[in-house]
C-alpha cells in the first residue's frame, strides 16, 4: 500500500563511519529541514544546494551536531518526492539522535527498500532498474556492484528491446500473411522470419546462459571445505580469512559446526563453509557434524576437498572422494611443502587439483584464482557482459525460450496461426521483464513493411 506520508531512514551502513546520512522523503521533508537545520549563512535551504550548518534540538535547546544538509525538491530527486539529506558526523549515537529528531517531526521510519519502491511507483525507474538498485545496496563485491550498475543503466532493457524488435519483426511478417492473403505480398519470406527468430533465440539463450554467472556475481558462491580430520581444512580457512576464526588444533574432530565466512576472491563473493572432518567415528556430536557436512555437499557451488599430501591415501580419503563424486570439486593438496606421499587412485586422474601449504600460505593465491576462474568465465570484458541476475528474469526468458522452441517445431508445418501464437508467447515473456505489451506496434510494423490494401 502506498500512502504518501513522509519517511526517513539512516542511509549509511550501521556502525561508526566517517559520515552518517539521514534521508527523508515526502511532503514534510522541507519542513523537517527548516525545523531542525540551522544554516550558518542566512536564508533557508535551496533545492539541490548543500548548506553547512547545525542540527538543533529545540526541545532541549541544544546543538546535536554540525552537519551538511541538502534539499532536493520534487520531482528532481531519487524518489521524485521532496528529499532531504542530513550528512552528520558518523558516530552512531549522533546519527541515531538525528533520526529520532526527524521522526519527532511527524515522519515515519522507512521500511526496508521503501525509497526505491517509491522511486519505482513514481515512475522514476522501471522494474528492472528498481531491482538493480536493491542489488546495489546489497552488493558485496566489485563485480556485483558493476553488474548492478549496468542493470540500472538499462543495459538489460536495451538487450531485451533488441530481442523484442527481432521477434516483432518475425511476428509482423507472419501476421501480414495471415491477415492479407489476397494482397500481393509475394511468397512467405520464411528465411527472413527464421533469421529474425533465430537471432532472438540465440540472444535469449546467451542471456539465460549468463544467468548462472549473474547469480554467482550477485549472490556469491557457496564453497564447502571438506576433508578428513587434520587434513588442514581449518588452517586453509584461516589462511583464506587471514585470521583465526575456527579453532585449529591437532586433535582430530575439533571443528564440529559448519562455520560460514564471506570473503572476496578476485572480485567474486565467496561464502566459505568449513565443516567437521569426515571420518568413521563413534562420537555422537561429531557424527552429527559429519552428517551435516554430507548434507551440505549438494548445495555447494564448489567443494574444496582437502587432502594431506604428506600422508598416504586412506579409507577416509576414499570416503570423501565418494561423497563428492559427481559434484564440482577442486582437490586441494595441502602440506605440499612436506615430502609427497599421497597417491590418488587412478580413477581420479582427471580431478582438478591445486597444491598449497596452508600454514605457510604457499599456493593460496593460485587457489583463489582457480576458484574465481571457474565462475567468472570472463567471456569477453565483463563490463560488456549483461548478466541476467534475477530469477524472475530468467523465468520470463525461459518462457520465451520454450515458445521459440515450439516455434521451431511448428515451423515446418507452415501453420501460421500457431507460429504467431508461439511468437506472441515469446514476446509476452520478454515483455514481462520490462513490462511492455505488443498492441499497436505490430500493426505499425506491418503497414510500414508491406504495401497493403484494397
Amino acid at each position, binding site marked *: *500500500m502506498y500512502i504518501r506520508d513522509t519517511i526517513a531512514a539512516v542511509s549509511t551502513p550501521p556502525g561508526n563511519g566517517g559520515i552518517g546520512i539521514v534521508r527523508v522523503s515526502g511532503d514534510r521533508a522541507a519542513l523537517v529541514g527548516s525545523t531542525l537545520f540551522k544554516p550558518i549563512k542566512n536564508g533557508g535551504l535551496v533545492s539541490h544546494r548543500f548548506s553547512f550548518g547545525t542540527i538543533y534540538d529545540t526541545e532541549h535547546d541544544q546543538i546535536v551536531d554540525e552537519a551538511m544538509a541538502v534539499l532536493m525538491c520534487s520531482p528532481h530527486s531519487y524518489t521524485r518526492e521532496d528529499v532531504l539529506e542530513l550528512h552528520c558526523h558518523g558516530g552512531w549515537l549522533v546519527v541515531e539522535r538525528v533520526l529520532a529528531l526527524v521522526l519527532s517531526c511527524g515522519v515515519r521510519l522507512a521500511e526496508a527498500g521503501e525509497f526505491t519502491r517509491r522511486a519505482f511507483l513514481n515512475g522514476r525507474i522501471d522494474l528492472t532498474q528498481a531491482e538493480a538498485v536493491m542489488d546495489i545496496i546489497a552488493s558485496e563485491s566489485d563485480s556485483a556492484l558493476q553488474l548492478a550498475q549496468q542493470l540500472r543503466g538499462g543495459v538489460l532493457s536495451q538487450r531485451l528491446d533488441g530481442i523484442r524488435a527481432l521477434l516483432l519483426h518475425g511476428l509482423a511478417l507472419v*501476421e501480414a500473411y495471415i491477415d492479407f492473403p489476397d494482397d500481393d505480398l509475394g511468397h512467405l519470406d520464411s528465411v527472413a522470419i527464421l533469421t529474425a527468430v533465430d537471432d532472438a533465440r540465440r540472444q535469449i539463450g546467451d542471456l539465460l546462459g549468463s544467468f548462472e554467472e549473474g547469480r554467482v556475481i550477485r549472490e556469491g558462491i557457496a564453497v564447502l571445505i571438506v576433508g578428513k580430520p587434520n587434513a588442514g581444512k581449518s588452517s586453509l580457512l584461516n589462511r583464506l580469512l587471514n585470521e583465526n576464526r575456527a579453532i585449529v588444533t591437532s586433535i582430530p574432530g575439533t571443528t564440529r559446526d559448519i562455520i560460514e565466512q564471506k570473503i572476496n576472491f578476485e572480485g567474486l563473493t565467496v561464502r566459505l563453509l568449513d565443516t567437521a572432518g569426515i571420518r568413521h567415528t563413534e562420537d555422537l556430536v561429531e557424527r552429527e557434524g559429519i552428517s551435516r557436512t554430507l548434507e551440505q555437499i549438494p548445495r555447494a557451488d564448489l567443494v574444496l576437498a582437502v587432502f594431506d599430501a604428506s600422508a598416504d591415501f586412506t579409507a577416509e580419503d576414499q570416503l570423501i572422494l565418494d561423497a563428492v563424486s559427481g559434484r564440482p570439486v577442486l582437490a586441494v593438496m595441502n602440506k605440499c611443502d612436506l615430502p609427497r606421499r599421497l597417491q590418488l587412485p587412478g580413477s581420479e586422474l582427471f580431478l582438478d587439483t591445486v597444491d598449497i601449504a596452508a600454514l605457510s600460505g604457499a599456493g593460496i593465491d593460485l587457489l583463489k584464482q582457480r576458484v574465481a576462474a571457474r565462475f567468472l568465465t570472463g567471456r569477453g570484458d565483463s563490463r560488456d557482459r549483461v548478466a541476467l541476475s534475477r530469477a524472475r528474469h530468467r523465468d520470463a526468458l525461459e518462457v520465451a525460450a520454450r515458445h521459440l522452441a515450439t516455434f521451431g517445431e511448428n515451423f515446418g508445418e507452415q501453420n501460421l496461426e500457431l507460429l504467431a501464437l508461439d511468437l506472441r508467447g515469446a514476446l509476452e515473456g520478454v515483455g514481462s521483464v520490462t513490462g511492455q505489451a505488443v498492441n499497436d506496434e505490430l500493426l505499425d510494423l506491418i503497414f510500414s513493411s508491406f504495401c497493403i490494401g484494397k
Partner: protein
Amino acid sequence: MMTYDQTYDVIVVGAGHAGCEAALAAARMGCRTMLLTINLDAIALMSCNPSIGGLAKGHLVKEIDALGGEMAKNIDATGIQFRILNTKKGPAVRASRAQADKQLYRLRMKRVLEQQDNLDLKQGEVTSLYLENSQVRGVEIRSGIRYLSQTVVVTTGTFMRGLIHIGLNNYPGGRAGDQPSIGLSDQLRTVGFSVGRLKTGTPARLDIRTIDLSKLETQWGDSPPQPFSFNTERITMPQVPCYIAYTNGRSHDIIRGGLDRSPLYSGVIEGIGPRYCPSIEDKVVRFPEKDRHQTFIEPEGLDTVEVYPSGMSTSLPIDVQIAFYRSIVGLERVEIMRPAYAIEYDYVDPIQLYHSLETKLIANLFHGGQINGTSGYEEAAAQGLIAGVNAALRVKGEEPLVLGRSDAYIGVMIDDLVTLGTKEPYRMFTSRAEYRLLLREDNADLRLRDIGYRLGLICEAEYASFVEKRQRIGCELERLSRTRLQHTEAECAYLSGKGLADIQKGTTLEQLLKRPEISYEDLVELDDVSRETLSGVREQVEIQTKYKGYIDRQLEQVAQAKKLESTKIPTTLDYNSIKSLTTEVREKLLKNRPGTLGQASRIPGVTPAAISIVSIALKSSSWKELAH
C-alpha cells in the same frame, strides 16, 4: 415543426449496413422501431467494394449471424462468388469472403426490412436530435417533422458533412449521387462531443466490355460455394469469376505526374485515411521500390457491365484517372463509368461511448458504424447490431449486452474503440484478437447463439437445430475418447499407408485424430460411426481435438486476464489525487476513463507501473475516504 403523433421505442438514423442491423434487431426484440434514411433506394448499398467478408471481417459476419443478424443471410442469397481464405494456415485464421450482386444485395435487405413486424421505413434527412436535459427524446428531419422516441441509434456512415474530392474539385455529398447530412454533426459538436474528420476513397467503376479479359488472370471461387450463415443450406446464385491485373512502371509515372493536383498531397484533404486501404497514389509514393500493384477486377453484379478494380482507389483528377487505368495491361481501352473519388466525413471519437455503444454525454443515444471511426460493412453491421440490441434492452429496462474480448471479435472491436478511441479509420484484423484461437469462424454459433436466442433474435427452429448440433458434437467427442483401435488388418494397412505403422492397439480415435497425419476423413475409413457424422460436427470435433492443447492454454490466459478485467475502477476515481502517476499517464486515464484495470492496461502509454499504482490506490483506504 410538426410533432408526429406516434412515439417510437427506437429510431435508427441511416439505413446502411449498421442501420439495417440495428433496426432489425430492435424490431425483432419487440420494439416499435423506425428506420430513417436519406434515400430509400440506397438501403444497404455497397458504396465501395461489392464484397462481404475476408480476414476477421468474415469472422464478424459469422458472429452477426450467430447473434441473429441479417448480413450473412443477405450475402448468401445474393453472393456470386464465394471463397474460403487461408485454408492451410490454421482453423482460426480461415475466413469466408464473397462477391455480392450489389443491386440484389440492397433489394433483398430492403425487402427483409419491409417485411419485418414493428418496423417503419421512412425517407428523410435528420438535421438534429431532439434533446431534453442531456437525454435524447427523438429526431427532427429537414421536411419539418419531429419524431419522438425513447432511444435513438445514429448510423450515418460517411454522410455527416460529407465532402467528395475528385482532383482539386470538391463538392458536398454523402456518397457519389447522394446528398450529405448537414447539421447533425454541428449539433453533436455543440452539445460537447469531440467530432473529428476522416477520409476514405473508392476506385472508379469500369465497363467490362472495354477490358481485354484474355490478358488477365481469371479467378473463380470455391466449388461448391460455402455459405456464411449457419442456417443457409446451399448457395443457389450463379457463380462468376474475378480477374487479376497489375499496374506497371508507366502507371506509376502517370500517378507521380498527377500528384501536384492530388487533394491528398496538396493538403486539401485534412481527414485521416486508412493505412490498410491506401489510395494508389499513396502506394506509389510510400512504396517506390514496388514495380507493380495488384488489382482484382470484381463484378458488381450479374446483370451489369460495371466492375470494381480493388486497391485502385484514387482522388486524382479525372484526366489522370483515365490515363492511369488505361496504362494497365488489358485495360488499354477501358471506359470509366463512374470516377474514383475520396470522401471526407465527420466522425465522433468512440472513446465517448460506453461498451453498450451508448454515448456517455447523452443518455439513450447510441452510435454505430462509421460515425465511430470504423471502416467496412462488416464492422458497421456488427456495431449496428449491438447498438440496436442495447437500445432495445434500454427500452425494456434491462442490462446492456457487452461481449468480452474472449467472446467475439465484436467484443474486441468495441473494447478497442471505446477504451482507446481512434484517430484513423478502424478496421478489424485477426491480429487484434489476443485469443484468436478461440474466436474462430467455425465456432461462432457455439460462442454466441445462446445469447442471440436469449435476446429473441433467433427463431425456435434455428435454435433447435443449433442445440442438436452442439449435442452431437459433445457425443462425438465423447465417443472418440472411448473408441479404441482394434488393430484389424484393414486398420493396420490403412495406418501404415499413412506412415503410422507404430500406432498401438488400444489407441483411442481421439489420440489418433491428434496426429498431424490424420484428419477426420481418415476416421471415416476406419470406423463405421464416423461415416454418419454431419459435416458441421466433423469440423468441430476435428478442430477441438487437434488444437486442444493450444485452446486450453488460451482458456487459461482468459481466466488470468479476467482477474484484471474484474477489478472495476469506480467512475468517481479521482486520478488527480493519485500523485504518483505521471502527468502523461494521468491525462490518458482522465481522457479514457477505463472501467476496469484490464481496460486501463490496454491504453497505450499506461505503463505496468501505473497499473500497479492505480491498483494500490484502489486498495488503499485513503482513496476510499476520498471517494465517499
